[in-house]
């Protein structure tokens, strides 16, 4: 038998790395939030004055709202589409399942920066494929400057986010469906249940953990994403696609207000950690 102290020795390397690259930087950011900065240089201790600015920062509240909308839209569309597609796909032949799952998963492998560039071209108001397609179909009156109008920009970007995420949902759901005991479906068939009834009463309830995982994963990702917005709209037009991460970036890198940027980062960190904790607790409790 080894003493507990021996275990700590084995844990030490990982713990030191964690402290050096996670705990200390977080503590540093928290510390920065209590100071004012001038042109990138530490100025003076200001207590909670930087935090008090949150209340009157309309861009912060707009960004928070956009993050919340993004979470809801992500939960509404990619998850639902992924669930339905995987349920349909699961009944096909194994080769078909493998091929289609791979195809659906391809957008997930594309970096968001690249996805942003691709969709930036699709949405481009001058030479964009989407408006061109609408014109060809005689639907030119529905053409928009998709990313350049406040009314369409956030939703249009969310479509890109959904495009990159739904394939991931399909793969996760597919794996979960294939682990469901086939005898449940056979029993339902004997009872005369149709596809809809089996989906509603067997598939959906038994995918609860997967749905929970995907939902919380999507929510956390929705708070963290940055690259897609930055390469397409930089938070514009106006503040229409501003999210917390772009607000942090602008405040830190462009304005040089390191103290307030640290406050925004702390808020973002608290939200993401809360979601992660909720996720951990819910998944552990089942």
């Amino acid at each position: 038998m080894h003493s507990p102290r021996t275990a700590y020795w084995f844990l030490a390397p990982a713990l030191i790395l964690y402290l050096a690259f996670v705990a200390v930087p977080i503590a540093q950011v928290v510390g920065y939030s209590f100071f004012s900065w001038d042109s990138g240089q530490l100025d003076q201790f200001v207590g909670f004055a930087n935090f008090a600015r949150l209340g009157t920062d309309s861009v912060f509240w707009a960004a928070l709202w956009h993050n919340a909308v993004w979470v809801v839209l992500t939960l509404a569309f990619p998850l639902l589409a992924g669930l339905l597609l995987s349920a349909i796909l699961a009944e096909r032949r194994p080769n078909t399942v493998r091929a289609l799952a791979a195809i659906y998963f391809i957008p997930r492998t594309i970096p968001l920066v690249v996805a942003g560039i691709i969709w930036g071209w699709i949405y481009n108001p001058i030479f964009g494929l989407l408006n061109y397609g609408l014109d060809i179909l005689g639907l030119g009156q529905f053409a928009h400057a998709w990313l350049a109008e406040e009314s369409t920009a956030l939703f249009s970007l969310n479509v890109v986010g959904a495009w990159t995420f739904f394939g991931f949902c399909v793969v996760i759901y597919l794996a979960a469906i294939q682990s469901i005991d086939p005898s449940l479906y056979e029993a339902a068939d004997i009872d005369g249940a149709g596809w809809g009834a089996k989906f509603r009463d067997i598939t959906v309830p038994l995918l609860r953990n997967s749905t929970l995982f995907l939902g919380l994963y999507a929510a956390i990702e929705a708070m963290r994403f940055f690259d897609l917005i930055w390469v397409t709209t930089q938070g514009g037009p106006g503040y229409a696609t501003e999210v917390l991460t772009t607000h942090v970036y602008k405040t830190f890198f462009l304005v040089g207000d390191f103290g307030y940027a640290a406050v925004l980062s702390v808020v973002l960190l608290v939200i993401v950690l809360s979601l992660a904790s909720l996720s951990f607790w819910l998944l552990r409790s089942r």
Partner: protein
Amino acid sequence: MKRIAVVATIGLSATQVAAETVVTQWDQFSQAGITAAGPAMDELIQTCAPALGGAEILRTVAPSIGIRDSYRLAVAAGKTPDLAYTWPAASVLSGYARTGALAPLDEYYAEYGWEHVNDFYRGRNSYDGSLYGVPMEQDLMGVYYNEALFEEHGIAVPTTYDEFVAAANAFKEAGVVPIAFGNRDRWPATNTFSLILGLTAGKQVEEDVFFRDTPWTNEAFLQAATVFQDWAEDGWFPRGFNGVGYDEANALFLSGRAAMTITGTWVIQDMIRGSDNIALGVFMLPPIADGVAPGTMWGEGSQWQLSASADEATREAAAAYLDCLVSDESQRVWVQKGYTVPIGTTPEELAEWGAHPVVHSFFEQGLATPESNFYDLHTTLPESVTQVLYPELQRLAGGDTTPEEFLQAMQSAWEAAVANGDRWIP
């Protein structure tokens, strides 16, 4: 940054600095795009090496748009490069001067003269009575136009604002985009609006706002904001201009699908290179409001600045090298190899050195009004105000806010910046 310790004896002149001295240099002179003066910089590093007195240049090229952000991080990390060519001057430069990150350059101005830097540029590179930057490039705003399209539609180059309005409307009627304008990158509208503002309010009113207590919500600024919004609402810009990139807008113009584009000399080399399919011309936008003098927006592009943390030998070497970079002899290299026109270069010199006719025309017109040339907003305002200006101009042009609301938002940001001590006054 400083890799090698300086061993020069205190009091030695720049030409006697020991060979161990390394001057770290950050600049933005790349081989293409905005400020594509890389070939000139490469040559001048060789040419000016003797001025270093044995010291060496350790050069880093950073993207022109991003260099200001990289520089701020370097300052924050205590790694300020010894010599940097970055932007903007005015508020941002004075912020670094105020916090002691930059070395004052008064003694070098006295030693080397640098008389080509006029009072306007000296003011933009000063803080609290001392000079902290040596501006080099001369940036002007103007209207690039497609001569063939103007001729085809029987439109003469406008000499009054009414003629400009008539020309833009005529192109619109003819199905030609009047002004190739793309503002996805957020900053191009700032330049366009700066030009409109200067030609509507004039330099004096601008200075009353920037340096004194006149609010942004004054009548002249309101007229300028209204004009800018009218340009957008009248369909002078391409569809979805807030979703069109700056480069895409330039490409639209160079492809012959737009009659004009309003931008600066910082992209003149790309305009010339890309103008194979069009006949490129330049004119200055005429005054918009009655009683306002002709002029254009001008600035220094970027400026050379020295780190306060550099030791004396390094600063001496860097200043001597800088004197070479901005010398009369080097001006010609910047023009011929870098398509960049240094401050102090005359139109006559441009003609003598064989500058492209468009370059000559642009600077001849832009430099004809030195007394009334005015300010570029996003290199003049504090960064906190600029970051409000960018989105608010998108909203103004997009019709999502009124001119009054736009100016009120600017006034609020301005008051906060002034209260924070961020305002620059020359």
